[in-house]
């Protein structure tokens, strides 16, 4: 008797279609004396390393006792049996069920409806912002600088040769046509995420105090460890004095 077969009734261990995943992983040590469980009294500790003895395993002995013929699986390794199809089908359905069950458990971590609603577009009135002044608003948890640029700042921004920029981008690509004086950028330094200070630095733009990145009056990186320009959020002009961010 093969006492260590994973699936009873498989007379030929590990052959062809009868191989199971357990066959691939474990090789039964044979034969050892079958140890009957449970014994009374104090137990020996669990298998110590290096000594394995056989635990009584799957034995379809009742077949013998009842005088029935031994049940054999398909001896050929070529075509799957009905039994295998059933096992595969059950396994597949169970796997699909497990995946379908896991999905909501993971998806619940995505932003919930209230968070998404709170991130809806906001309108900002530009009239209180004087020339040369800037304000900071929050949208989707991020600080956004809205600068009313002076003529000097606009000129400086437009005249910079693009080749000299670490992240080349024309000023016209960073503002809305006809609204050159308004700069709207996300105030998060592209280096490691600090908030740069406005109207600071050598370029009359932004200066990040954490590691010294300097941005110009168009929010483009000029100097310092930051790799790219301050990103421009999606926004539109609802009217000349009002923008909608988002």
């Amino acid at each position, binding site marked *: 008797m093969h006492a260590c077969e994973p699936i009873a009734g498989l007379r030929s261990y590990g052959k062809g279609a009868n191989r199971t995943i357990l066959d691939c992983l474990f090789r039964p*040590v044979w034969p050892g004396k*079958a140890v*009957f469980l449970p014994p009374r009294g104090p137990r020996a500790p669990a298998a110590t390393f290096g000594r394995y003895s056989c635990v009584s395993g799957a034995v379809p002995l009742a077949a013998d006792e009842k005088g029935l013929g031994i049940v054999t699986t398909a001896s050929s390794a070529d075509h799957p049996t009905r039994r295998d199809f059933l096992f595969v089908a059950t396994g597949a359905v169970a796997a699909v069920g497990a995946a379908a069950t896991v999905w909501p458990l993971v998806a619940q971590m995505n932003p919930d409806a209230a968070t998404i609603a709170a991130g809806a577009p906001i309108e900002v009135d530009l009239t209180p912002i004087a020339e040369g002044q800037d304000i900071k608003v929050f949208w989707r948890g991020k600080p956004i600088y809205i600068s009313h640029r002076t003529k000097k700042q606009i000129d400086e921004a437009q005249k910079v040769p693009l080749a000299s920029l670490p992240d080349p981008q024309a000023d016209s690509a960073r503002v809305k046509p006809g609204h050159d004086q308004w700069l709207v950028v996300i105030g998060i330094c592209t280096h490691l995420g600090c908030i740069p200070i406005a109207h600071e630095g050598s370029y009359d733009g932004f200066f990040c105090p954490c590691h010294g990145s300097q941005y110009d009056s168009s929010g483009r990186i000029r100097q310092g460890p930051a790799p790219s320009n301050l990103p421009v959020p999606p926004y539109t002009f609802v009217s000349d004095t009002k923008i909608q961010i988002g």
Partner: protein
Amino acid sequence: MSGPSDFQPTNPALKWIERRLPIMGLVHSSFVAYPTPRNLNYWWTFGAILSMMLGLQILTGVILAMHYTPHADLAFKSIELIVRDVNYGWLLRNMHACGASMFFFAVYIHMFRGLYYGSYKEPREILWILGVIIYLLMMATGFMGYVLPWGQMSFWGATVITNLFSAVPYFGESIVTLLWGGYAVGNPTLNRFFSLHYLLPFVIAGVVVLHVWALHVAGQNNPAGVEAKTEKDTVPFTPYATIKDAFGVSCFMLFFAWFIFYMPNYLGDADNYIPANPGVTPAHIVPEWYYLPFYAILRSIPNKLAGVVGMFGAIIILAFLPWLDNARTRSSKYRPLAKQFFWIFVVVCLGLGYLGSQPPEGIYVIAGRILTVLYFAYFLILLPLLSRIEKPRPVPNSIADDVLAKHGGKVASAIVALVVAGGLLVGGAQTARADDHGVSPPGNKWSFSGPMGKFDRGSLQRGLKVYKEVCSSCHGLSYVAFRNLAEAGGPGYSVAQASAFASEYKVKDGPDDKGEMFERAGRPADYFPSPFPNENAARAANGGAYPPDLSLITKARSYKRGFPMFLVDFFTQYQEQGPDYVTAVLQGYEDKPPAGVTLPEGSYYNKYFPGHAIKMPKPLNDGQVTFDDGAPATVAQYAKDVTTFLMWTAEPHMEARKRMGLQVFVFLILLTGLLYFTKKKVWANAH
């Protein structure tokens, strides 16, 4: 643990690990090669079911804790936000809440199985005691978990149970103050209950490891009560017990899914949908159904300390069972007297459960006392007596012999008896929830009832109009945001329509740069504004009565359905007690109270309102609201539509719930069928 294992991994990487930490060997010897008696019946699958439920509760609980706020002012709303806004939040909440009930259902069956088959007897005494410890930890965990939503029942249940400790002589009051962290149940209590509720399931998991270890030392008991002697008596755990457990788990999941998707509030209490109010105690305080028998015992004993001792004693006495019953025959299958008294004991427990849900008056008190005496007599008198005087029938020689012998359909009849009895217990728990001072409202046909129920969009829109034009002058709807009007499964407005609807409202916002609050037009993200800034203002404007917020009103009200309706309700999925009540109250005004009834000053007579005296004047009159779609402008129509609308505000995701329920059921039936045939195939050689 269970013995030396017999494998060697072939893969060199696995071999490397195995040499240093033989975990694969452990798993193999404990759950693959482990010899399992071949005559186990399906009552033995509940161990696996319980392990799965513990894992599921921990998993859903940890996830819910990502979104829950354990502060007295925020807890109730945070759970409503989980249900309404978090992706699949309604599903997670239902799984966890119904899961607790399922966990106890399974543990009671598991315990009764142990009682019947003598699984507590030598050499499994410690196994049994560890089980009692797990049970106690489960009760503590369940109690604290129920407090977390901070509803009326949460708060008052916490008050009652923590007050139990005041029965301790001398130190009682100090102990209670220590537990509360204050002068009454309050925010400190909630915070510490949250922390402990998170902790205890992992303690339970640890004790479960000990429990399984103790089990594997002795080996499993079996229906014959005869220990395994030869290898003919056992089969390896995998695949035999594994597949049988899988099938059992799948059947259990079907039962579980019925509650999650179709009857999520059946086992709960409508009062817990009312936010906790320390100034108002609910008319009937009842614990959850799984505590009812012990609640009955507590109330049966008229002395405070003795009642508390009796209640805890009723649980602790289980730990002494191996010594109270030392009959040599293990299984009640072969003990005819013990078997009969066992079933009487089951009836006693169910009876105590039923009584725990009834008001402590009249015959219920007497019955409670009798059953309490019987409960303790079973353990203290009957079992010791039986072990002396009973003549058991001869047990089979071995497990193999037991398998070969024929066994009848006793298991089937036991299941039927259990289902009926369980239904009675649960139904009993239903009845207490209603206030018995009202007349039962008539049942109605609702478009959203039943497994395929859907909200009638037109009805929802008309109901919104009724709310806006009639109810909103006094009643808030603060859990509903304008954006919800555009969500699937709701009134079916577009996002633009919802925005336009929102902009008609003025909403307070601020402070502005001057530090002042200001008003602005509503936006989709805003919630329906309440008519009064706070409760005091609401009471002052309404003769001292507080018009409740209507967001959850259809889930916060119920009425008793009586026997046998509550059993029928379980199968027909009747969950519409709340809507039936609300629509009845709206239409239940009568101009003149019946003869002999005097109403307090400022009240009106209502047929269905508990106590019949309601402070709200008749809100609906014919012709009050005109509908654009030509629906009749009658009170009946208004009541029906606004109730439908309020059912949607109480549960915006109902349609998604029922739709997913259908998919889950189809899937589970398919899986159960496949597992059944797989089990039969695997076991074909073992019988």
